[in-house]
């Protein structure tokens, strides 16, 4: 008697589950090689590691400005006791959330304010306008507002003189409260190109912390200002 042809037909469910398991294993392998992450917070962790600032907590999450046309991207302001970080993450369908760098401020030094500057663009080159942010932490409750003087210096002259191109002001009513501290992140639109000459100048940031009467309590120098940039491609 001829035996019936035996053919093992794997169930569709088993096949689907097996392929899904393979996909998840590849995803985990990609994550192991730091190749993209399932959640944006994991991408921020990578930025933390790149700058070695330690684990931070989210203060604020922002959507990127529409003019950058970034698709699925997020900006984060995060902090820990010693550092303030502003970072960009972007979602790619196969890779997941990928970090795109950021800017940070070392807050370990005891000071009334800690201010940083961050520029974000698509390609990161001179012709790419991008957007500019200022961010910071206010540790002194007496500070009611901050004026950030964006300055330029002409290296054609010997003296170290900084000329104010424009001022970006931010006040307490626009700040975010968290655990007894106050934070801000603001986009500004200053055109410094008239002052910028590739060979002779670049931008410098001096931040004046003001009390309720407008008196300057403290000035953070440019050297203390964290400068960062991100190119999201």
């Amino acid at each position, binding site marked *: 008697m001829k*035996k019936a042809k035996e053919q093992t037909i794997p169930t569709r469910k088993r096949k*689907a589950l097996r*392929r899904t398991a393979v996909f998840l294993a590849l995803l985990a392998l990609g994550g192991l090689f730091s190749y993209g992450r399932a959640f944006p917070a994991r991408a921020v962790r990578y930025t933390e590691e790149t700058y*070695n*600032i*330690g684990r931070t907590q989210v203060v604020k999450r922002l959507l990127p400005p529409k003019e950058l046309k970034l698709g699925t991207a997020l900006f984060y302001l995060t902090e820990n006791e010693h550092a303030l970080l502003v970072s960009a993450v972007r979602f790619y369908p196969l890779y997941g959330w990928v970090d795109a760098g950021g800017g940070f401020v070392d807050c370990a030094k005891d000071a009334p304010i800690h201010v940083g500057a961050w520029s974000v663009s698509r390609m990161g080159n001179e012709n790419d306008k991008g957007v500019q942010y200022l961010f910071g932490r206010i540790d002194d409750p007496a500070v009611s507002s901050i004026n950030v003087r964006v300055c330029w210096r002409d290296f054609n002259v010997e003296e170290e003189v900084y000329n104010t191109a424009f001022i970006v002001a931010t006040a307490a009513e626009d700040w975010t409260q968290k655990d007894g501290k106050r934070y801000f992140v603001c986009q500004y639109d200053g055109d410094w190109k008239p002052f910028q000459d590739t060979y002779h100048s670049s931008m410098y940031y001096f931040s004046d912390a003001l009390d309720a009467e407008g008196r300057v309590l403290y000035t953070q120098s440019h050297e203390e200002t964290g400068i960062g940039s991100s190119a999201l491609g």
Partner: protein
Amino acid sequence: MDEREFCDRVLARLRHATRTEKAAVRAELEGHIEDRAEALTKAGYDHEAAMARAAEVMGNPEEIGGALDKQYPLGWLILSRVSLIFSILLAVSLVTSLHSVAELRDSVEARTNPAAGLRSGSVTGTYIYSVDLRADVGNDVLRVFQLGLTLRPDGQTGVASVALCNYDQNVFGAASQILIDNTTYETESGGELMPAGGSGGGGSGAQYWVADGIDVSRTDEYLAVCYDRFGETARLEVPLDWEGMLS
């Protein structure tokens, strides 16, 4: 109704079966029909009549097809194909991203043989020796692994060159890109010093740096490599082996 017609009518009810699945079902049905036909042939039927009779007694092909159709739900097919497509794309992207493997290699190399990982720049000096000093700095490890000494003609002062690297404590983690940039150097006699120059490089797996032209004195017993940022501090006192140099 012959064997072929029977199978065609059964398969017509399989709405979501793939070509492979339908071929497998057909093969199984044909196998059953042939088994029955074989028995009938032995009982005296000719082959064609036996096959036709065997197909008839299999049952109603539409009912059989309807019952089999439930074993091929569309949802699992979609999941299976989507997983397959994404797996292929992900595998291709992983394979083509050789930099990830290179980063892992750099991370391992910085742990096991940092001198081999130093690809740009080298320690200079008339006397070069290996050291192994490490400090945990946040998520990273700062490691000093080589020092070069040159004694000036006055016999009392010299120049040091030091090689260092940093890597993440997790071998798969990202090395800090700025840690080494923010190291400073001190000696007992000179206080905080600025190197005359330096060179280095690296990637996400590990960062390397060679600091050159650090002024030292014969009375200095060590050169300190220091880091102080984000509340993390480190100080590695690298011994200056003047005796070894002069022997």
